[in-house]
C-alpha cells in the first residue's frame, strides 16, 4: 500500500465534500432546522414522507435494474428473483428483515452457482 492509496490527494477530498457531503447533509440540517416547527401529523409532512419513501424505493430499484460494479455480473432474472423471494419470506415471517435479506442472498448465490 502506497501513500497515494492510503491518503490520496486533497483535491479528491474537496470533491467528496462538494459532490457528496454537502448535497447529502443539507437535507438532515433542513430536518433539524424545520423539525421543531413541523407537526409530525401535518399533511405537508405526510406528503414529503411519501415522496421520500418513493424516492428511496427508486434508489432500491436503480441498484437492482442498473446494477453497479460486480452486481452487473448477475443475470437480470436472478436479481429480480432474489428480491421477489426475499419479499415472500419477509411477509411470511411477519416482517423479519433478517429472514428476507438472507433468503434474497441465498436465492441469488444458489442461482449463480447453479448457472455456473
Amino acid at each position, binding site marked *: 500500500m502506497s501513500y497515494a492509496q*492510503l491518503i490520496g490527494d486533497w483535491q479528491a477530498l474537496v470533491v467528496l465534500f462538494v459532490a457528496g457531503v454537502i448535497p447529502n447533509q443539507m437535507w438532515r440540517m433542513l*430536518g433539524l432546522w424545520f423539525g421543531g416547527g413541523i407537526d409530525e401529523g401535518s399533511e405537508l409532512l405526510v406528503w414529503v414522507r411519501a415522496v421520500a419513501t418513493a424516492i428511496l424505493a427508486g434508489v432500491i430499484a436503480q441498484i437492482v435494474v442498473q446494477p453497479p460494479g460486480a452486481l452487473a455480473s448477475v443475470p437480470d432474472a436472478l436479481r429480480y428473483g432474489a428480491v421477489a423471494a426475499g419479499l415472500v419470506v419477509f411477509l411470511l415471517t411477519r416482517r423479519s*428483515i433478517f429472514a428476507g435479506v438472507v433468503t434474497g442472498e441465498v436465492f441469488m448465490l444458489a442461482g449463480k452457482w447453479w448457472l455456473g
Partner: protein
Amino acid sequence: MALPPLDSPQWNSPWRAFAWGLRSVTQTILTIVLFATYLGIGALAHDTHFSLLWALCSTLFVWAGPAQIILITTLGSGATIIQSAIAVTVSAIRLFPMVVSVLPLMRTPTTRRRELFFAAHLTAVTLWVECHRFLPQVPRERRIAFVNGLGFGLVSVCLCANTVGFFLAANLTQTLGAAILMLTPLSFLFSTARNSREAADVVALALGVLLYPLAAKMNSGLDILVSGLVAGTIAYGVHWWREVRA
C-alpha cells in the same frame, strides 16, 4: 442483553445511557448488514481508485450507504461533480422527513437544537428503524445520549468494515462482491417495509419501485426524482382519500 427498566438508577447518568446505546449495537441484526455493506463500499472505493482516507471520510461525513455508492460509482464512471452532486442529493431527500420524524422521539421541552445535532447527523435508515424499536425502553431525558452511543457504535463498526474491505478488495471474488452489493437494496426494502405504518407508506414504496423502470426510459438524469414525485403524490392521494372517507 436487556436494557435496564425505565426507573433503574442505571439511567441516572448520561454517560451510562451513552454506553447502553453503544452496547445495543450488538442487539441488532442490521449491524451485520451494515458491516457487510461498508465492507463492500471499502472495496468499491479501492477498485475505483479512491484512497482509504477518502473512503473513511465519506463514511464519517456522509453516513448514508446509497449516497456513498452513488457518489463512488458516478465519479468513478467519469460523471462531472455537478452530475454526482445531483444524484446524491436526490437520493438523500429521504433524510429530511426521517430527521423530522425521529427527533421528536428524543426531544424534551427544554432540549436545545444544538443538542440534537449529532442525532440528526447519525440519522439514516438503520438508526431510524432502531430508534422506533429501542427508544420506548429508554427514559426520555436520556434518549439523546443513548442515540449518540448507538450511532457512534454503528459508525465505528462501519469505519472498521471500510478498512477491511479496502485491503481485501483485490481478493474479493466477483460473486462475493455481487452478494455484498445486493445487501443494500434488500435491507433497505425490508427495513422501510417494516417501518411502514400507514397504507400511504406501502403504496409509496411499491409504486416507487414499479415506476422507476418506466421513468428510467426517459433518460432525463432525474429519473428517480420523477418516479418519486409521481409515486409519492399518488400515495399521498390514497392517504387523503382514506382520511376523507373516514
